């Protein structure tokens, strides 16, 4: 069965600074990878996804993530954050065969300070 580990439960950064949110996964088969975002008092929404092809994927709001198969990682990055990026970010994985159940990590709370 697949699993996801988000190494940082909280990440505080200053506005306009770069940020990286780390995600590592475990699976015995090939996977699909996702990042979801939950803004304060809102539901979860898809930020970006990797299914196949280019290992660098771009999502909404200037975020991007890079799939690294050898390191089983899918870290999320943004070169310059804004106050509005304050949210909780969830990494998720599904196996590309079988039931394709989606499993989430524990989440990383990103706080942007002025």
């Amino acid at each position: 069965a697949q699993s996801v580990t988000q190494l940082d439960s909280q990440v505080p950064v200053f506005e306009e600074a770069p940020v990286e949110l780390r995600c590592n996964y475990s699976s015995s088969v090939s996977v699909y990878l996702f990042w979801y975002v939950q803004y304060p008092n809102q539901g979860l929404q898809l930020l970006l996804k990797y299914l196949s092809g280019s290992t660098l994927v771009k999502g909404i709001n200037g975020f991007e993530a890079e799939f690294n198969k050898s390191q089983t990682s899918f870290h999320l990055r943004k070169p310059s954050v804004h106050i509005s990026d304050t949210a909780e970010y969830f990494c998720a994985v599904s196996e590309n065969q079988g039931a394709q159940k989606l499993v989430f990590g524990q989440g990383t709370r990103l706080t942007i300070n002025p």
Partner: protein
Amino acid sequence: GAGVSQSPSNKVTEKGKDVELRCDPISGHTALYWYRQSLGQGLEFLIYFQGNSAPDKSGLPSDRFSAERTGGSVSTLTIQRTQQEDSAVYLCASSPGTVGSPLHFGNGTRLTVT
């Protein structure tokens, strides 16, 4: 169009009582998930329905938890003999069920067991 609808939005119940949480997925979505979100615990997978296949119940924490999906549409999550540790936000999500399709989340039911 209508999104995923969950009811009730809030539920307060006494320890030992049974509760039923309802989810109306987006019309035509074949995949339906239940997750539990607790403070600091991320999104805990509970159960996954895909079309007419047998549901994946591997995430249900105990035999007090059960779920059904009638007619491939509406789903009900039932918790029997509720305990205080069951207090959490219960999230339902649906998707078209195709490869890599994103999940659409409801706003959740906040369950408080007193």
